[in-house]
């Protein structure tokens, strides 16, 4: 019987915070640092005789495969099979995918898979992959967003509606005494996670098992079954350890399909990992955006009209980067509009990456706010406070935020950082060869939650096991789920075993969109509530009276060891959390404030982050240690987005040119200074029974804009086109 969360959470065992809310080491930490946590490509235990598959990617961006000549590849030493669309059997495209995972005869983008070569060794497969000769009939393509954006229609409604409005934006903007009207751009970006997309596949009869690197087990079982045209019950996905995903592994990719096809063709287990240079064009990426922001305010900076339009592109049938969504809820103002337009581009598939929407929307919006602050002569922190709103400003006061501690984040963050030492006039602070500047920006990210199930097993010794298909993509899921069970069942954390990432386990939310922590801990909570009831009943307690504490079930004067209460056969229950309409009655989001000090070399214009700090409010922080790690990682991604991350499009050939880690830059240690992370105390009783919200993506939201604003404060050069590379600053200083 699912636990329906449709009224605010009251006092419950989580509030004891014996285990939850305390900094805990990762349960999987020792396995990770000793190399004992096996990743998908290393499953020698389940597939000791696996053959090796190497993907062949398309050499053209658009057009058709005329003919594939695999004779030389098939004759090469060690080669067992060459799989192409021509011999793979019928394949369908799952709704999650915009482009097909195996091209043929049409090619939809550069490096789309056209073949898989399977051989006895990896080296043989890689060599033979170069022997597959593909004749193409190249087509024409559209690759330049700036050219294609004019006349682009509104995107289809997807995760968010394409457009929104309240009041009369045009009229409000027209009469506003102070106006900001600027255009900003963000480039295509790559997830650049450490572990490549990788899968080991094995068929046992008609039963397929994929040991793969994946964020969303249930979705991916569904999509695997759809793609192969088999029943979901015939597919098992196992993904207990994931070396980063950032949205790139929300769905199966070519490695999973090709491994399954290769295993089918050879009758062997087959493993496939995408080579690093293939990942950038074969898989998904965050689409580039062009954003126009208009803000109309009074002379004190109080916003009356705010409009945010964003253009991005994708393959036919794809979706938009929803860069304007935060502008729907972040600041007040009676007259509002947002819109997402979608151009058709024949670049690789655009899709979710690290806080899709807000991460790039705030890169633009929070520069616009800095520009407004300067124009009205109001401190940027104070400007945000003046425009704070405690309800959804598109819907009005009838839809308040469930919790919104933005002002506390702004004040606390500013104080911890020493914001009052900032000189509002740009170009005034100097430290040797460095121009020094401070900037800030707001962090905002939605707080969605979704149904999530778990199994709880309590054995006769009082040990607790949690099983759910939830994934841990480096985020710390193992630990917070263990903490939840430990708190609920009244046992220490080391009495809890957590098993994740297997489709044989009950279906969870999965990891994505910052919803995993809130949803999956609520699912474990629901299962624990059921387990408590079952154990209480079994041991003859009145379930409503029984408490679970210190390894015992306690009611009145009666105190029974948990293991004894569970009995020699133990107790196993499965249950699920389901969310009612609290998220409709209340706006739900997470908030924060970023503060950054940069140095800009007065001659070379190189930018170095000198200090970075932030304060964040995201409900109950379940594990302050791993939450801090999440936020500093996300802030680091914000540095990358601000200063260096860019998939560079060659609009002649239609592909991302810098497709390796040497040329697609992400921050190195030397780019990242000390980062101060402070969590504002908050319990959100309308979010989940744990009063918790996700925090994984909040830290990236706004971080890059704080860097941009700090560069402006340091130099007086206002940059609106990311990444903010030194040549752009140099041009500004040379023309100043």
């Amino acid at each position, binding site marked *: 019987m699912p636990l329906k969360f449709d009224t605010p959470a009251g006092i419950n065992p989580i509030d004891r915070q014996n285990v939850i809310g305390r900094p805990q080491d990762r349960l999987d930490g020792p396995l990770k640092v000793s190399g004992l946590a096996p990743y998908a490509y290393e499953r020698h235990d389940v597939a000791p005789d696996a053959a090796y598959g190497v993907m062949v990617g398309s*050499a*053209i961006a658009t057009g058709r495969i005329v003919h594939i000549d695999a004779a030389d590849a098939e004759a090469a030493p060690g080669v067992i099979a060459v799989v192409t669309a021509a011999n793979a059997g019928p394949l369908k495209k799952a709704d999650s995918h915009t482009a097909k995972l195996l091209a043929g005869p049409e090619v939809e983008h550069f490096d789309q898979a056209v073949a898989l070569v399977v051989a006895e060794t990896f080296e043989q497969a*890689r060599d033979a992959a170069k022997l597959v000769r593909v004749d193409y009939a190249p087509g024409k393509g559209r690759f330049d967003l700036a050219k294609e954006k004019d006349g682009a229609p509104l995107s289809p409604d997807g995760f968010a509606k394409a457009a929104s409005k309240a009041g009369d934006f045009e009229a409000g903007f027209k009469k506003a005494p102070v106006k900001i009207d600027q255009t900003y751009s963000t480039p295509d970006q790559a997830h650049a996670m450490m572990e490549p997309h990788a899968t080991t596949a094995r068929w046992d009869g008609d039963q397929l098992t994929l040991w793969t690197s994946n964020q969303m087990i249930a979705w991916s079982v569904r999509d695997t079954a759809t793609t192969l045209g088999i029943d979901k019950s015939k597919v098992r996905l196992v993904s207990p350890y994931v070396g980063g995903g950032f949205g790139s592994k929300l769905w199966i990719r070519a490695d999973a399909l090709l491994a399954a096809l290769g295993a089918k063709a050879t009758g062997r287990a087959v493993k496939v990992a995408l080579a690093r240079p293939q990942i950038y064009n074969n898989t998904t990426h965050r689409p580039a955006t062009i954003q126009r922001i208009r803000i109309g305010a009074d002379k004190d900076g109080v916003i009356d009209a705010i409009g945010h339009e964003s253009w991005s592109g994708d393959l036919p049938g794809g979706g938009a980067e929803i860069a304007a969504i935060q502008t729907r809820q972040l600041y007040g103002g009676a007259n509002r509009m947002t819109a997402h337009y979608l151009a058709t581009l024949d670049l690789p598939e655009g899709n979710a990456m690290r806080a899709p929407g807000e991460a790039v929307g705030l890169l633009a919006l929070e520069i616009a706010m800095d520009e407004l602050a300067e124009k009205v002569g109001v401190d940027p922190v104070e400007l945000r406070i003046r425009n704070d709103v405690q309800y959804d400003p598109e819907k009005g006061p009838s839809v308040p935020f469930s919790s919104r501690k933005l002002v506390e984040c702004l004040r606390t963050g500013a104080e911890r950082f020493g914001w009052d030492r900032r000189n509002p006039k740009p170009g005034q602070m100097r430290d040797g060869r460095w121009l020094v500047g401070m900037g800030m920006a707001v962090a905002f990210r939605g707080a969605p939650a979704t149904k999530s199930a778990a199994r709880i097993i309590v054995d006769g010794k009082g040990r607790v096991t949690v099983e759910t298909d939830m994934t841990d993509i480096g985020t710390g899921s193992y630990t917070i789920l263990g903490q939840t069970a430990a708190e609920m069942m009244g046992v220490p954390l080391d009495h809890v075993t957590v098993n994740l990432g297997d489709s044989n386990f009950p279906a969870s939310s999965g990891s994505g969109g910052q919803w995993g922590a809130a949803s999956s801990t609520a699912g474990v909570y629901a299962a624990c509530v059921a387990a408590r009831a079952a154990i209480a009943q079994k041991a003859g307690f009145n379930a409503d009276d029984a408490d679970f504490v210190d390894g015992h079930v306690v009611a009145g004067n009666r105190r029974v060891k948990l293991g004894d209460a569970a009995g020699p056969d133990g107790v196993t229950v499965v249950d699920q959390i389901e969310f009612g309409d609290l998220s409709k009655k209340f706006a739900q989001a997470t908030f924060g404030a970023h503060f950054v000090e940069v140095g800009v*070399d007065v*001659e*070379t214009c190189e930018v170095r982050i000198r200090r970075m700090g932030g304060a964040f409010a995201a409900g109950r922080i379940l594990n302050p240690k791993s939450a801090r790690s999440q936020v500093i990682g996300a802030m680091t991604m914000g540095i990358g987005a601000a200063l260096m991350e860019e998939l560079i499009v060659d609009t002649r050939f239609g592909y991302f*040119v810098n497709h390796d880690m040497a040329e697609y830059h992400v921050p190195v240690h030397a780019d990242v200074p000390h980062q101060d992370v402070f969590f504002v105390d908050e319990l959100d009783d309308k979010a989940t029974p744990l009063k918790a919200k996700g925090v994984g993506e909040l830290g990236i939201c706004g971080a890059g804009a704080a860097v941009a604003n700090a560069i402006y404060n340091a130099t007086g050069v206002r940059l609106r086109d990311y990444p903010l590379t*030194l040549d752009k600053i140099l041009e500004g200083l040379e023309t100043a």
Partner: protein
Amino acid sequence: MKPFTYERASTPAEAAAMAAAKPASRFIAGGTNLLDLMKLQIETPQHLIDVNRLDLDRVEPTKDGGLRIGALVRNTDLAANKIVRRDYAVLSRALLAGASGQLRNKATTAGNLLQRTRCPYFYDTTKPCNKRKPGSGCAALGGINRGLAIMGTSEACIATHPSDMAVAMRLLDASVETVSADGATRAIPIADFHQLPGKTPHIETALRPGELITAVTLPAPIEGRHVYRKVRDRASYAFALISVAAIVGPKGQRFAFGGLAHKPWRVEAAEKLSGPDAITASVTLGAKTTPQNAFKIPLLRRTLGAVLAEA
């Protein structure tokens, strides 16, 4: 990676003779560049001659007060060498500005001189590149070229040489010692070692087929302040947009530049001028820029200003 045969040489002359006997061979030392290129089939040698066991890993003073650096001295060891740090600080700094600690542990002195360009089209076998496939065209000319060369370019190639170490070697007037299959040795001035692309961008050095680098010799130290300033898109582990190696001392000033050309760039005539404006104008005389890489000229001027102020 194509299958290849492998043998290990025990003397430099033997290595050169092995290479002469098998034209489609390559010497392998650290392998930090060659192995990547082989995996991508940009380099497809049929035969590898492992020179790692050769007795070429010492740094020794020369009779005329200079320093002889064995071809196999690892970048990490050379950067940390006491004599280098004291007398050739610009070389130590250039080495430490390059790559990462792990790569410098493997990379050798000779291999560093011979590393291939990082032009993205060179690395993509689906695209034209005259350096990789002579006559196929240059995708970089009308393509993505923000990081590429502005000096000494040709219609065939605008690639840069990626080495930091080589820029310092050029500044120091190093010479490259080699041995050929017949046992003959010669010393090639570093100014002549790397070639401009011209119509043959696939020919990158003055080395003859099978010729093996045995050492790099530095003349006696040059008194003055040694500076290596590398400007790049992140704080570490990135190739230079531009770099400046400089010695400024009582007997004058000298400069060499990375990130500008197909070889370490030095214009001796510019060294008699004073001030960053005049020096930059002289160094970049005849520059061919694109809208993407034109910033390298003002960046060079500004960086030179910073270097001169520091020196």
